[in-house]
């Protein structure tokens, strides 16, 4: 799908919307929220069949070979429907890291399974401190008897409890390296973390002398991790933009049809002006997410700051829109049965997943020369 026309992209996204309408209804989202796995294997297969799990994987390895622009649009649809699936982990972070490391053997071995959905993978970077910086890596790798062994802790690992394979960033005596380890390997203990966003799965991993396979890299490992994170940030921004727009539409629809004092409440300035302000945030969110994707796709010089901008602007916009949406709905959105809080939970999770907005604002100033 690299070099796809915008019509082709629209058609693909349209197919995905139809799939999600069937497979990611509110009822289904609520059902999956209560399962330990947090996703439906049949939906996962359907996503694979459409090409979503292999979206960014190159065509040689069974993927569509799409870029950031397509990824961002796909994630808008995902965000709108609150899809429960390990997409961010297995279709973005893991393949992006493998491709960034550029190790042909590892790519050939792992990417086809990720593309066809038969293998679920994730990436473990940060430790208990939770920052997406090299200093927070808390796993150490030691080499002895021709084997690498991992010791330490990784935390906030997305979808680790449903992963087959985990790519672990670990410290070695010669700097950071990436290790491949099976989730069921001995010495690996995966402990699910209870998440406020019930559509998200996340775990803590303990490594006790766990044997792992090192994936040699053609470039500095932290650069490769950054590249994967950048793609993950664009995916997240797309999810936020799609979620934000959906919540705005849902809210506008409600205030047009909810009558109090003999009038649709959307005719009251207090409500109308909140809606207008949310439109501004939603449009800005979409612009930021799409521009970051375009800038990265075109390898523009402003790609890094555009990604940081999207990271904090989209996080704040999605949070503000979902929070204000509850206020605009009034009492009905204070009930569990109303979907507004499901989006708020997702928004609050997305705002933290790969660093909070303040962190990205600080990076943005650095990237602008400050």
């Amino acid at each position, binding site marked *: 799908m690299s070099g796809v026309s915008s019509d082709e992209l629209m058609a693909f996204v349209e197919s995905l919307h139809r799939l999600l309408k069937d497979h990611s209804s509110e009822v289904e989202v609520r059902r999956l929220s209560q399962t330990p796995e947090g996703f439906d294997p049949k939906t996962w297969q359907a996503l694979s069949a459409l090409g979503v799990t292999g979206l960014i994987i190159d065509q040689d390895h069974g993927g569509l070979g799409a870029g950031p622009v397509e990824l961002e649009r796909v994630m808008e649809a995902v965000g709108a429907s609150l899809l429960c699936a390990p997409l961010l982990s297995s279709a973005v972070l893991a393949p992006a890291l493998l491709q960034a490391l550029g190790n042909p053997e590892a790519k050939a071995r792992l990417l086809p399974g990720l593309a066809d959905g038969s293998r679920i993978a994730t990436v473990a970077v940060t430790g208990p401190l939770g920052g997406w910086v090299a200093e927070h890596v808390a796993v150490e790798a030691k080499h002895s008897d021709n084997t690498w062994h991992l010791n330490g802790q990784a935390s906030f690992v997305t979808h680790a409890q449903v992963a087959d394979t985990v790519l672990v960033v670990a410290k070695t005596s010669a700097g950071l390296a990436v290790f491949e380890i099976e989730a069921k390997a001995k010495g690996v203990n995966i402990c699910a973390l209870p998440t406020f966003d019930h559509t998200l799965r996340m775990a803590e991993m303990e490594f006790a002398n766990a044997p792992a396979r090192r994936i040699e890299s053609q470039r500095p490992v932290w650069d490769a991790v950054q590249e994967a994170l950048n793609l993950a940030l664009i995916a997240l921004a797309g999810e936020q933009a799609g979620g934000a727009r959906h919540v705005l539409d849902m809210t506008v629809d409600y205030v047009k049809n909810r009558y109090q*004092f003999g009038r649709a409440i959307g005719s009251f300035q207090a409500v109308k002006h909140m809606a207008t302000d949310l439109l501004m945030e939603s449009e800005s969110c979409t612009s930021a997410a799409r521009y970051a994707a375009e800038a990265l796709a075109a390898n523009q010089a402003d790609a890094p700051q555009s990604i940081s901008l999207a990271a904090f602007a989209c996080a704040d916009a999605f949070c503000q829109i979902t929070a204000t949406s509850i206020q605009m709905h009034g009492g009905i959105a204070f009930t569990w049965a109303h979907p507004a809080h499901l989006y708020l939970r997702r928004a609050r999770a997305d705002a933290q997943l790969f660093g909070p907005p*303040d962190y990205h604002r600080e990076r943005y100033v650095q990237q602008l020369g400050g």
Partner: protein
Amino acid sequence: MSTDLVNDQALEAEVKAWLAEHWKPEALVTGEGFGRHPQQAFMTKVVEARWAVPTWPKAWWGRDLAPAQAKIIERAFAAVGAPGAGQDKSNLWANTAMAHATPAFKETIVPALLSGAVGMCLLYSEPGAGSDLAAVRTRADRRGDNYIINGQKVWTSGAAVADYGMLIARTDWDVPKHKGISFFFLPMKQTGIEVRPLRQVTNEAQFNEVFITDAIVSAENLLGPLNGGWGVLQTALAYERSVMGDAARGPRSGKDNPKGDGALIELAREAGRLNDPVIRQELAQVTAYKVLNRLNNARAKADMAQGTSSAIMSLGKLAMSRILHEEARLRTKLLGAASLLEGPDHPRAEDANFLSLNAYFTSIGGGTDQIQRNIIGERVLGLPKEPEIDREMPFRDVRSG
């Protein structure tokens, strides 16, 4: 020495003697009772001894005392921790009944309410009548000596244990909306009333939905005039506002939270974020919101003690809404990635996330912030009302939903 002073001293001696005889401090049980009181036997004695509502007339369980004298009684009760005094100020249910019930109904219901013998709930809000309470569509139709009630109420706490609900229902559909509402004490323990817990966004159920199908209430239980329920409701709401403090709950994780003006600072220290200058600015600002609200309330109380009415009092709920939302936001920021979590193993995250959601209890419940701004703008600042398009039209023509 003035006669008044002599009387005051006699009163104080009398109440102290009575308490010494009847109150067993070890008997104190607390708990939210929705009108029903755990110390009912003692409460009955309080009512019979006329300590419960001393400013009320002698004919109605009172002593015709001035408020200042009533204070003597309240202080004496408070000194020994005994319940039951001061209900002329605090008992929403009894005051409403006293003001508006028929003499016959008052005779039975008021002592029951004062002695905590009956549980109560409020049947005001409906799915279609939230901000706009006057749009209630629950109907009360006369049949013989009774009214037949049909409709649905929501956000009712205590409904499952209540003996009566204070109900507003429509008794005339052909007059403007405020003019066709009546106010009843609806017996809750009857078929025709179904109470379903309402699961909140916080995954708790402190409220209920109440489905009412052909429930029966005696015409004797009508408070105020037929179709005059809006006026009764206004006095009941005024009591409620003056009695109920802010009901917003603090953290729920069970883990101790730091107290006082430095509480957020301690949380920041615990989270290892106290040295961050950005955090420090926000710690100052959110703490300021809390302290300023306290100072405003203190000033309002001082104004009222001097007899001047205070504009500030009504700002409290709006201020609390900002405090709660902002504190939740700051707590989230202090935690960073840790705020992704919840549950007993992650109490600080549990609290930050709970507070983020529960803040809406205050910013929506009891009138949204937006409605509250209307009220303050109109009643305190004297700004003109908006045109109300449905004020004068027959209710059956009003669009609602």
